[in-house]
């Protein structure tokens, strides 16, 4: 089961809930507002220490809005990872894979994913395998722009056609974010053809109080179930200020079961460490 996104602010009061979700479900998704995560000054030594090798370089430096977004999103990412690991953000290095996928270098007990759009910053974490998250403004216009055929499988197009006209754009935004989340979880993003896999969305559960959280199932292009038992999905609508965002997450469980402990402080095995140190001290 994937957890409902949790709002977090830089003051740190919300991290206990994030750790509780990780402990109970092996995953957590957090979101923050761009304005809240922008630092007051961009040149403080403390900010430079936290960002470390993520200090803005190259073209991102020149364009102020891009730089602000870059810094705020990395701050949220590093502070979220640090909270999950009970570590100092400045001690973590974010590594980027060859497709740009982020991870915490040397700390593979968690996997992370980052998305940002408009005023929303979104981070997903899992201790079970790989995660991808994606966010879009819920009112982003996709339907009617000839995009459906490049996003949807034949099965999804058929399902889309059965919906009332006014629901179709929302369905398309929902599918788009789910597909982004799935392909980000496998580190490929748009490189993976979106028409090579699909989703079947169940009906809205009654009385849950969670807006727009539908059951989601992975399908083949023809609409038959893809048997992806290792995968879990979740899609929600979040309201931040007066803007609604569609937010989706995908997690692939590696099948190794639960790890009760993911703290950075306990990841070195004390017995191995002692034996190696003793051997080096040697006679």
């Amino acid at each position: 089961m994937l957890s409902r996104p949790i709002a977090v602010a830089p003051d740190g009061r919300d991290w206990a809930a994030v750790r509780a979700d990780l402990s109970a479900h092996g995953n957590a998704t957090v979101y923050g507002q761009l304005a809240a995560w922008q630092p007051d000054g961009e040149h403080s030594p403390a900010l430079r220490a936290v960002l470390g090798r993520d200090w803005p370089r190259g073209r991102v430096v020149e364009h102020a809005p891009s730089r602000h977004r870059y810094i705020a999103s990395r701050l949220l990412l590093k502070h979220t990872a640090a909270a999950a690991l009970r570590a100092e953000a400045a001690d973590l290095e974010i590594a980027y894979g060859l497709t740009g996928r982020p991870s915490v270098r040397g700390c593979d007990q968690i996997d992370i994913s980052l998305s940002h759009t408009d005023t929303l910053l979104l981070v997903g974490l899992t201790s079970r395998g790989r995660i991808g998250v994606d966010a879009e403004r819920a009112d982003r216009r996709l339907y009617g722009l000839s995009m459906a055929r490049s996003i949807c499988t034949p099965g999804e197009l058929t399902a889309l056609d059965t919906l009332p006209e006014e629901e179709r754009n929302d369905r398309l935004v929902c599918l788009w974010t789910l597909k982004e989340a799935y392909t980000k979880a496998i580190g490929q993003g748009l490189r993976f053809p979106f028409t090579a896999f699909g989703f079947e969305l169940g009906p809205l559960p009654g009385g849950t109080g969670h807006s727009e959280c539908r059951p989601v199932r992975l399908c083949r292009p023809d609409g038959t179930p893809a048997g992806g038992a290792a995968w879990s999905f979740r899609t929600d609508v979040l309201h931040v200020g007066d803007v609604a965002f569609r937010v989706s997450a995908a997690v692939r469980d590696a099948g190794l079961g639960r790890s009760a402990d993911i703290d950075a402080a306990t990841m070195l095995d004390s017995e191995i460490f002692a034996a190696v140190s003793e051997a080096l001290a040697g006679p």
Partner: protein
Amino acid sequence: MSTGVPPKSGPGRGVPAPAGPHEAGAHDCSTRRPGATGAAPPTSRLDDSVRSRAACAEALLGDPAEPGNPTGYQALLAADRSAVPPAEAEAALDGFGINAEFVPRELGGRFDSAEGLLRVLRPVFRRDTALGLGHGLTTFTAASAVWLSGSTEQRTSLAGRLLSGSKATVATYETAQANDYVRGRISVVPGPGDTWTATGLKPVVINLRRADALVLFCHTPARHGGSSHRALLLDPHRLPATRYRAIVRPAPERAGLRAYVGAGAWLDDCPVPCDALLGPPGSGMATALRTAHISRALTAALVVAALDTALRAAVHAYCAERSGAGRKAQNDPGSAARVLVGALVDLLLYDSFAVTTTRALQLRPAEAGVHAAAVTSLMPTVFIDTMNGLATVLGARLHADGGAVGAYRKFLRDVPLMTVGHVGTAAARSTLIPQLKRLAHASWCAWQEAPAGLFRPGAALPPFPYGELALAGGTDSLSGTIAVAAAAPHGRGLVERNLHGLAEGMTAELRDLRTRVLALPSPAPGSAASPAWCGLADRYAWVLAAAAVLGVWRHQTTGFLADPAWATLALHRIARRLGIRTTDPPPECASRIHQEILARFTERRGYDLYATPLAG
């Protein structure tokens, strides 16, 4: 359990006979011995060279894609769906005398090098990781603990049992942040007289119900120091039924390795005779860690076989699309070609490191543990990233249940379990990190290249140095290769000059690492600085991988591996993973790799360093 059914098709099934000065007199690999389990291995029928034995294993297993092949994908995937071991494939391996590959030559077997074993096991792992682990590597890992620390009687007795078809298994220590596959502790205390008693539950012990020998790593009542660990060598069939049980649990439907992980060991004040103690008092952890050097090197090298099959499946899809069968597919063929090039380069990069590490067990036994830990720590990244990249080429074919794509999906599920995920990398880093300060002082500013033999796959090796395989040596000559490569003349063409620049970049990275490692407070479990140490250990592992690539390239004089194209792309990919800014590699590098991908596919040769002929 093994039926020993003879194969349907004829000798070799398309595999060319091995050639070479020492391999004349080709053997007949086509006949599986009926009822092979329990029978003596047919050593007399085998040409003794490693290359010949590896080719024999490949020929025996046959074309994996052939629908009627009892040891092909269809049969292997069907057995997996039923959560049972693939009986015919196991019988074929028994007929080959696979267990003799695990027993040192001086004890009557054929084992004389870890590299030789990896070459013989690669055909198995190319088809099915679970089979390779359950009917191969697990027995060897358990046996290695006995070859390393057992008495003459224990070694002789286990060798005899393995040569008569027995399996062995091992229950390792529970290490930090354990998951469901490594959880559980067994403790052992002195019992009446000179006996001991063992108590505890280890929920997952691979192949336990079929094993005649169990190596059990236990804790003692001593809380600290060397005496807090003991290793035992038990015959589970001789333990009292009221005190020992193999706890059987049905494998969950989607669980990986499901035919082999269905049982765990339960012991309750179970009496253990004193001749079951493995090694002198206090040697349990040393035995476990020295065994881990061997099993880590081999596991890394064998995961390459899974990537080999995955790459071949993607190349097959790519060629089908190019030939027009799938022209409607929206995959951009240029992008697919780039993915394939990246996959082969990463495979060769990782194989360079894995094979170098495997050879280091014999050529540099004091430092092999450092390399084994480092190569292990990179495995999840290399494996998952390569598999996921290839998924973009497979596209909608990814949903197919059978054939090589079915095997691809099974690898994706099984390999993370074989390497036990984060627990495996955390244990490896726990071996590596205490040595980093000493390595930084002693080795990272050395200008001495590692011995050339380390980088020559298949070259002769000295006898396996059981006594010299150090728990921790605190030295590393592999990284010295980078400085030597960077100091060499700039090279002839554009590609070599690019490679030289990348080697200089790696030298700078090693220098920076040295500064950072020496500046950090000494590492300790529980320390707040642990993530910083783990980050540096990861960077160091990538630098070692670059050193292995440079070494393999520098020490070849002919053939594809002597071409700087692959090494240039490999170092470029490592540099990008480390966030080192580089210029784009010359475009001819990718063209050269692309050409090699298609040539090996057409000629049915493996994608690893050895490029050996395949049965399919």
